């Protein structure tokens, strides 16, 4: 019985040491640069705005960076260069754009060496709405397809080729 008690005390002390040890380590965590610098083309969700306008032109071949689909949008305050990201993402989601379309976009403006560009997080046309970026501003074309529903995944899995 005494041996069992000692073992229990020992285990408890060890657990306490682990907790204390973790606490000590937590206090020693390095001070990382959390407020890192913001460079050109960094999406700032705090600067998001909504813009409405008319498509002057839509191209899937950018004349200048960033690579991806661009729209020249006529708004009440002038013409904007809108970056939509991968055109294939729009096509896969059956979202088409053409000259004369009225659209509403939510996103953030950025100053680049090529001029100001508007990175779109959400685009709406008529009753159709498509998210192009995550809430953090990352392009959904990177891995957005992984957010399919289980039913959609199951259907895809049954049709999938070699993995």
């Amino acid at each position, binding site marked *: 019985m005494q041996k069992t008690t000692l073992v229990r005390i020992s285990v408890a002390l060890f657990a306490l040491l682990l907790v204390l040890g973790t606490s000590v380590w937590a206090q020693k965590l390095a001070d990382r640069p959390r407020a890192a610098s913001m460079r050109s083309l960094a999406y700032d969700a705090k600067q998001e705005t909504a813009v409405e306008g008319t498509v002057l032109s839509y191209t899937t071949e950018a004349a*200048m960076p960033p690579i991806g689909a661009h729209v020249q949008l006529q708004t009440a305050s002038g013409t904007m260069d809108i970056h939509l990201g991968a055109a294939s993402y729009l*096509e896969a989601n059956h979202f088409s754009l053409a000259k004369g379309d009225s659209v509403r976009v939510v996103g953030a403006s950025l100053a680049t060496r090529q001029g100001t560009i508007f990175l779109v997080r959400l685009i709406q046309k008529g009753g159709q709405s498509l998210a192009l970026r995550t809430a953090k*501003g990352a392009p959904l074309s990177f891995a957005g397809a992984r957010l399919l529903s289980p039913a959609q995944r199951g259907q895809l899995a049954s049709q999938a080729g070699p993995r």
Partner: protein
Amino acid sequence: MNLPVKRLLSFAAALFAFVSAGCSNSGNTVVGPPPPPPTGNFSNSSLKGQYAFSMSGTELCAGQGSFFARAGSFTADGSGHISGGVEDVNVCTGVGTLPFTSSTYSISADGRGTLNLTNNTGTTSYSLILTSPTQGFVAQTDGNATASGSLQRQNPAAFSNPAIANGYVFDVFGASSASNPESIIGRFDADGAGNISLGLYDSNEAGTPSGQQLFPAGALYQFDHTFGQSGRGVANIAGHNFAFYVVDATRLKLVGTDFPEVFSGEVFAQRNIAFSDASLNSGFAFLLGGSSSSGPIATAGRFAADGVGNLSEIFLDENNNGTVTLLPSQGGTVAGTYILDANGLGGGAATWTDTKVGTFTFIFYLISPTEAVFQETDTGITSDGTLLAQTAGPITPASLAGDFASVLSGVTQNGSIVDSNDFVGQLKLTSASGNNATGIMDFTEFSPAHQHQFFDIQSSGPLNITSPGTGPNTLTLTTTFPSPQTFNFTAYAVDSNTVFLVGVDNNRVLAGSIARQP
């Protein structure tokens, strides 16, 4: 050198027209004109034993490109046959552990070859290049997906918990459960009994760095009862579940097994010393890849660390989805600092500022005083890679002359299509001035619109070394088939055996490396 190959970017380039006399174009497969007979000492017998591999890239999922990862092990018999093995895949339909049935491979004299791995879902095909009989680069070139990575011969003596007892540094990259790009780097101690302690990590999800964190409860590693003979095990690292494949006691390959998140990466044994600012005291070259707010990003460069916290001779080439930034900027100057964590466990931070472009911030975990995993921490950028000590130099065309294995990954805008690309092949360098580089490569152009594979595509051009060779050099490669294309790279030499490459064209984002063959 244990050079981690970075799966860099995931995206979607149709570069070429498909006509040329004397060449073949069958459906989505294009084969270049017959190359000169390969030379070298490689053969099927060069690939013999158990090999671990890992790679990541882009698959097609519901009409969209999507990041995916795989890692595994196969056994080659030295005669063109794969007798078995297993892999873990993390694809958009879920995760799976898939044993290989009878499969095949072929290696030519120059170390280039093919690998076909069959499981119960079918056969996946790869192009590969060996740097030696113990390691090489690999790219998936079958039209089902595009991906690239590396393979290394395994040491079965390390397939047990007791063999995994050391400090380790890790680096994984992938997508979070919210589909954001995410990089996690850090370090931990493994005790040889499956327990992990002193786990520290820094995560960067969609360009938002976490700051240094402790591993949450539940960290462990454990060899697999079913596939342990393949060096497979499972681990919980930094709060995420992985399958691992042991190369040897100093290196493990990781693939994330949680879903819908996906990660690919590696673990390296850490030198058992107390790291300090004095640990960084030489020139270093680095290569990073990942994703920014606008799309894929690739960065390469170099700096000199003085052992007391100062950085100088800083050069950087960044290609952020076609926007190329070079440091020092025109008319600008660059200065920087670094600091090692006071706990001596090898973590640290580096910062430099160009007077015109702005500040660049990074963190790292040292594997040794000459190697580290490296992560950018600037807002909106999720990018990680490798930091390697440079030779004192000089690097010259003569010192670089020889045969190299090459691997590249990235994206190209071609007309209205943006393709994901993975390249693997051989680059021959001579000491001549001018047209001193000739290459041959297999590669993919992969997008929802088309999936093309190119084989035996030849290229040539100049590698121009700017004395002393440890700063930015230029490599220009031009292909003539199926149509003329020019690829412009900045080349940062680690030493005469390894060179980092970053593409500086506005219509493509490419990064990779070349590694000397024997």
